[in-house]
């Protein structure tokens, strides 16, 4: 491994100075091969026990006073915690589950949606975190949470946030941004709330947030003609391409595909498109080099940070739904290309388009806090947010979860028709969403099987089991058992 610093070209600026400082810190965390065995020292071990203690402490004892800044994000604190348990393959006992359900239900707003805490206004972000937490700990029936979600009011809340340019406010009198749209689309898909009136225009809004760099910004600014109709331009993105917004925008784009392919889609929406090639280019360039241990950064010329393991690293799985990467998207009759190192490229095409091993090393060597929990980078403290997104990023780098055509056709075959007016949209959304399947034998786990985490659904960041459980309940569907072996078939 060459550990060349990021070139400064003899021209130092504030950016290159903080970069050099970070490289110096990370260098201390890079393992060295043991002189006798050649094994990396220290071992690449995920200290699951220590992270469990961190999570249990937060759940049972509570969060220290500095978390007051997240008092309006209580559903997030809960989601980060219970989902981190799931990724670590740990279930909760029924008593604690019930206490969590009871707490979550105090956040539901009387006019629909969930707020950041009791008595707080409804907001799209805590709505996602509440519903996903309920997917993990809840159940159908009285007191189980699922059937106490007021879906009609939630839908009305969503519609009350909709803007003329296809975007949504995150809450009343609040900002528009793609995080909110991602949260809304996930919840609406999970709870069977999708309608053409909800989705109309949103795809072109998402597309307008893509910047010249290829990644996506927080929002765009609309222009209207004097008669009040939306103009195609100017519609400038507000803010630069950013990992978090890019994940949310790309996931939203994928979530909108069933609608765009359905009979409900408005004719003028046929032209909405994003530049996938430029997006891929931007994403791969967010991965730091060897001296940065292959962690991801969130913006050009910024520093690597553990949470982008999920926001950027996790985005590669989503690209597979758009036909980019993954063996199922490759042509089978192509000639193997050798880039000169002796190994045929064709053999490891399913390893993905970024360096999965390096990312795992970043999380294992730099992301773990010695006192438990995971973090942005050393010497920072661990926190609930980075703990989940480092773990999810690690999981996503370990496993290959892909949209399986086989699974999709099984789901289509098993679909039980409803009386819904939007049958086509509904069926497409359900079957595409649940077609994501973990490739059997497709895992590459740095540090050995002890480091194995549960795979998560690339769109929801919940386990596939939890995603299926909630969705089959709300769509009133039963789904066929998984095939024993899911091996992605290549096209043609």
């Amino acid at each position: 491994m060459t550990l060349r610093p990021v070139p400064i070209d003899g021209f130092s600026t504030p950016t290159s100075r903080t970069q050099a400082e970070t490289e110096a810190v990370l260098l201390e965390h890079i393992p060295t091969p043991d002189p006798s065995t050649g094994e990396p020292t220290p071992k690449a071990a995920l200290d699951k026990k220590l992270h469990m203690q961190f999570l249990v402490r937060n759940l049972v004892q509570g969060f220290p006073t500095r978390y007051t800044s997240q008092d309006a994000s209580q559903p997030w604190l809960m989601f980060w915690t219970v989902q981190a348990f799931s990724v670590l393959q740990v279930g909760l006992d029924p008593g604690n589950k019930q206490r969590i359900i009871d707490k979550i239900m105090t956040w539901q707003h009387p006019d629909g949606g969930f707020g950041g805490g009791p008595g707080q206004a409804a907001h799209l972000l805590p709505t996602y975190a509440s519903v996903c937490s309920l997917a993990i700990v809840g159940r159908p029936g009285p007191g189980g949470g699922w059937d106490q979600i007021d879906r009609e009011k939630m839908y009305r809340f969503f519609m009350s946030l909709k803007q003329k340019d296809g975007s949504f406010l995150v809450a009343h009198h609040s900002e528009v941004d793609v995080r909110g749209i991602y949260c809304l689309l996930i919840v609406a898909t999970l709870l069977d709330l999708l309608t053409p009136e909800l989705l109309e225009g949103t795809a072109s809004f998402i597309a307008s947030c893509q910047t010249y760099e290829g990644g996506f910004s927080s929002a765009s600014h609309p222009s209207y003609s004097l008669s009040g109709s939306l103009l195609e331009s100017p519609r400038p993105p507000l803010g630069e391409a950013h990992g978090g917004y890019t994940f949310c925008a790309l996931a939203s784009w994928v979530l909108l595909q069933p609608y765009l392919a359905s009979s409900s889609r408005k004719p003028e929406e046929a032209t909405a498109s994003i530049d996938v090639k430029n997006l891929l280019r931007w994403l791969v360039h967010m991965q730091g080099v060897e001296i940065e241990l292959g962690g991801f950064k969130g913006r050009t010329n910024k520093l690597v940070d553990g949470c982008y393991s999920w926001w950027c690293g996790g985005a590669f799985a989503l690209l597979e739904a758009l036909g980019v990467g993954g063996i199922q998207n490759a042509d089978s009759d192509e000639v193997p290309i050798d880039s000169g190192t002796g190994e045929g490229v064709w053999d490891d095409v399913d390893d993905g388009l970024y360096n999965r091993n390096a990312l795992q090393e970043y999380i294992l060597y730099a992301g773990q806090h010695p006192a438990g929990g995971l973090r942005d980078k050393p010497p920072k403290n661990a926190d609930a947010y980075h703990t989940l997104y480092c773990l999810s990023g690690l999981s996503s780098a370990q496993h290959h979860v892909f949209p399986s055509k086989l699974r999709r056709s099984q789901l289509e075959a098993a679909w039980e028709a409803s009386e819904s007016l939007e049958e086509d949209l509904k069926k497409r959304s359900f079957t595409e969403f649940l077609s994501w399947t973990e490739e059997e034998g497709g895992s590459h786990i740095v540090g050995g099987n002890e480091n194995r985490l549960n795979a998560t659904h690339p769109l929801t960041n919940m386990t596939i089991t939890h995603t299926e459980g909630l969705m089959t309940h709300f769509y009133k569907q039963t789904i066929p058992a998984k095939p024993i072996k899911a091996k992605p078939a290549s096209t043609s």
Partner: protein
Amino acid sequence: MATISFDDEELFSERPDWADVVPLEQYENISPLAPIFYTEEYKDATNYFRAIAKSGEKSRRVLELTESVIRQNPAHYSAWQYRYETLLALLTASSPSGVISPSDPLLVAEIELMDILAVRFLKTYQVWHHRRLLVALTRKPQRELQFITRSLDADVKNYHTWSYRQWLLAYFGGSVDSTGDEDVSEDLWEGELDFVDTMLAQDVRNNSAWHHRFFVVWGCGVREGERDRERVFKRELTFVKQNISLAPSNPSAWNYLRGILKHTSTPFASVLPFVRPYAVVPSSSESAQRDIVDLENPPPGEGAELPCAEALEFLADAYEIQGGADGVKSAVEIWTSLANKYDPIRKKYWEHRIRDAHQALKKANA
């Protein structure tokens, strides 16, 4: 309106002027898992906030209460939201016509308070959004530009600050003036290019500033003085080339170069004479050539570490676009060198590009 000092602040529960309100505890009948250990002051203020939000009261003292909550937790979006609604109610009530006056002392005081809070809580969404709501009422964008420039001193890549600036320019200075408002003017944009120049002179690697440049020049309509797009393009090309020559391994500058070429549908091949010297290991004869000044194609600076991966990538893209067996062959050579030598962390990506290009070639020949 007096700004409150919190040093010797009494709890709301101890104040006679709040005695008529029954505070509302957060969790009444359950002992929640994952609690946060709040301070007494925070519990007190939020207990009163919950009570007020429930009763719907929108009076002066609500401004004081929400300010207390916000100062202790600036991310408390419900407190911001309720504060805004209260402010609107008070402003409308204080105006005989019902039309809010931009110079209403209440509104002016609110902006002044925000000047303090924004710098203090730079990283919260809500301070910046509240500002947008207020400026939409005052319609005085000019002073905001100065405020933003000052607050960037504290955090030069702050996402909210930059996107607020872009919102301001788009909202008040769009070339399509749909509001018919006389305050809306193109003057707002006058200093914008100089501002970006200054920011990039401070740090040529500041990607937020590069993005802002793209927004100003290409993203948000065309203004007076910029109508000659050919001239604007040439100016921008010269600007980005010079900045690449200062510090070649700067992805922000290369992304801007790619961005403007794509935006104007200019072929990548048109800048190859500029790019090539950045993609090779310089020989001594080439460094001697530095004495020849080519303003169109500034050479890599003294300390440049060559070859620069961004230049190699650019060359390969240009060759791929050029197409044909030769183009693909040249591109593949470069991608191979990136995969194995100059940018091995992205090996999988470079190999993907190789596969893709071969595939396209095969299709073209079929």
